[in-house]
């Protein structure tokens, strides 16, 4: 009796649940990093948040308000990576938007009307971002749009903006995939596109005397369009110059264990590392290298070091010697930067170090302000046409765009020294604050 009961029970229940488990795993795999976060959903379904400044719209129409209804705010729609794996830089961009909105409202608004951001959290998920942009345009009927963090989210969302002919001014989508479709309405607000981000680093490495110049390089990189463009560009140039690739591997955005990767990079004997990173993976790479005492002569990360505060908090003195490429530095002498820094600190007093992405977000606002003011219009086509023809002064310096929204400048080489991020190249840049240090001090 007992035996027969078990023989029925065990084989039937176990495979059934095993398959159930398999189903759960597939489900988990599909949602993966991608998991739905209830907090995020709640935020997404909540009423639009008034980002900053006075929530009450200006009371009356005036000559300074050419586009009625003057008692209604201008609404700018945003789908941002506020949670998920891109949340650190995504939140930083959002802070940049908010500082700009507060400033513009304090100065009387845009075309005399107050500005509010209607923001949704896309949880760092491309599909969610797409449906949110679709909703912002068709249901919420926002006046204007700002872009999300990262190329991975900008590539799909910019197609929606293009479809509805909305100017898509974005501070963090510079991968080739953003521009391949030759959109008219997308404008990338950084000095140059992703494939050129590591150019200043590559130029610097190749400028070293032959005896010092590294002979081998490793390219551990996240599976991300921006990262791929930057890394491929740098790798091609370095290889052409004779710097051999000894390690190249792509890991998923959800990778959290870097021990074996670090061991493999170390075993490759690479002189320098070009880490294709977003944020958390840059931190984890440094920790993994340090824990096995791998001391590259130079290390460059595509993204991560520019999110200054969280990066320094995570790594402490291990930041020293790390290179990155960016268009902005907190001490920048660019027009308007001092005001941005002051306003940022007033709004986010805890953040002593302002992340580079915040400056990118703020620049997006500056670009919109210039275009709307010049055209005296909220017509997205007029705004896009104007931006194709006119450069704009931003805290990242002047930025102008070609016919498909690619900026035409170049990046700065930045390096952490004594716990602070400095512009170290090009030599003639007015913001250069230190000379590059090579080889890197040990972790």
């Amino acid at each position: 009796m007992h035996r027969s009961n078990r023989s029925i029970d065990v084989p039937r229940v176990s495979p059934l649940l095993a398959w159930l488990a398999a189903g759960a795993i597939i489900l988990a795999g599909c949602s993966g990093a991608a998991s739905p976060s209830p907090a995020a959903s709640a935020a997404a379904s909540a009423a639009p948040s008034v980002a900053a400044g006075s929530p009450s719209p200006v009371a009356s129409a005036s000559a300074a308000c050419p586009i009625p209804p003057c008692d209604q705010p201008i609404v700018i729609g945003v789908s941002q990576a506020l949670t998920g794996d891109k949340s650190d830089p995504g939140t930083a961009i959002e802070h940049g938007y908010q500082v700009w909105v507060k400033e513009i409202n304090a100065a009387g608004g845009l075309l005399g009307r107050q500005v509010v951001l209607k923001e949704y959290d896309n949880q760092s998920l491309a599909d969610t971002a797409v449906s949110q942009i679709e909703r912002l345009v068709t249901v919420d009927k926002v006046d204007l749009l700002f872009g999300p963090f990262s190329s991975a989210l900008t590539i799909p969302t910019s197609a929606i903006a293009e479809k509805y002919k909305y100017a898509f001014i974005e501070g963090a989508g510079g991968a080739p995939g953003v521009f391949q479709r030759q959109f008219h309405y997308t404008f990338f607000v950084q000095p140059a596109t992703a494939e050129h981000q590591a150019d200043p680093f590559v130029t610097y490495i190749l400028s070293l005397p032959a005896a010092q110049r590294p002979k081998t390089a490793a390219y551990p990189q996240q599976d991300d369009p921006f990262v791929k463009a930057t890394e491929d560009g740098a790798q091609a140039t370095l290889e052409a110059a004779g710097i051999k690739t000894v390690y190249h591997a792509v890991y998923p955005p959800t990778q959290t264990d870097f021990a074996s990767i670090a061991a493999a990079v170390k075993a490759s004997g690479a002189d320098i590392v070009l880490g294709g990173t977003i944020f958390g993976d840059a931190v984890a790479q440094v920790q993994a290298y340090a824990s096995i005492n791998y001391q590259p002569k130079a290390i460059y990360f595509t993204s991560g070091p520019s999110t200054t505060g969280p990066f320094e908090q995570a790594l402490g003195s291990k930041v020293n010697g790390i290179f990155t490429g960016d268009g902005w530095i907190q001490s920048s002498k660019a027009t308007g930067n001092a005001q941005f820094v002051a306003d940022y600190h007033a709004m986010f007093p805890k953040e002593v170090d302002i992340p580079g992405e915040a400056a990118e977000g703020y620049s997006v606002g500056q670009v919109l302000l210039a275009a709307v003011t010049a055209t005296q219009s909220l017509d997205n086509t007029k705004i896009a046409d104007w931006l194709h023809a006119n450069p704009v002064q931003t805290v990242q310096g002047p930025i102008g765009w070609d016919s498909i929204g690619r900026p035409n400048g170049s990046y700065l080489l930045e390096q952490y020294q004594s716990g602070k991020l400095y512009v170290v190249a090009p030599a003639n840049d007015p913001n250069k604050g230190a000379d590059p240090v090579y080889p890197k001090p040990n972790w």
Partner: protein
Amino acid sequence: MNPELLIQSVVLGILTGGVYALMASGLTLIFGIMRVVNVAHGAMIVMAAYVSWVLYKTFNLDPIASIVVVMPIFFVAGALVQWTILRRLGGRDLTLTVLVTFGFAIILEGLQGSLWSSSFQAINTPYSLSSFEIGGIYVPLVRLLAAGVALVLLGALYLLLARSNLGRAIRATTQDPRTAALVGVNVEQVTMLAFALGVSMAAAAGPLLGMIFAFYPATHWLWIGKLLAIVVLGGLGSLAGTFVAAMILGLAEQVATVTVSLDWAPMVFYIFLFGVLIVRPRGLFGTTARESL
């Protein structure tokens, strides 16, 4: 292939496998007694990692020492959840219980996100990046400590199940709840205690996870996927099987990282899982699961 690198990855694989075994032990224990896959197990581990992280930041309490604090808290919380919610679903459709634990996972993830944001976190102690070298092979101190702690806790769990009255009652209930009840086991109470024990094993694994891997609220989906692969490979309900499977998968993952490719490393879990489901649906230790637990 560089032999030193291969040995390095084997060392990392063994140490990581030990921690995986601790993470999965509670899951297999809960399955054994309740026949329910606790989908929230990964979220519970991540929750314990957060609690340990907070204790370290606020009171400078060492994450390994914090295990002593988080285990009883999670034990009580697990007992409460089982007694007040899961017990009421007992005897009904098992999938309902799975759905409830799925709901717990989502609630825990949301709670973590609202309390601590969704940024990457890690418990960085002064010794976090220390390691020692033996013949060119680096042994990260944190992984060694974590594997050691995992082994001690798994040994204690094994002894508890094998030697104590509670353990005997749990094993009896796992084998056949009706007969266990007939010989005087309070099945409801034992089930509650076993669930609480499983949750406290998750709690013990949390601080270790927090020291080794970066974590954020959504990471539990990745973990529950890996842990289910481990317990299915080991044979659902078998503690010994879980240990062996965790070692195999931990090793396979690290070795694949350095020998095959990074893309394939995470896939190793699922390749093993599908292979086992096709060839041996009960898992490695499935047939002896009920007795050996």
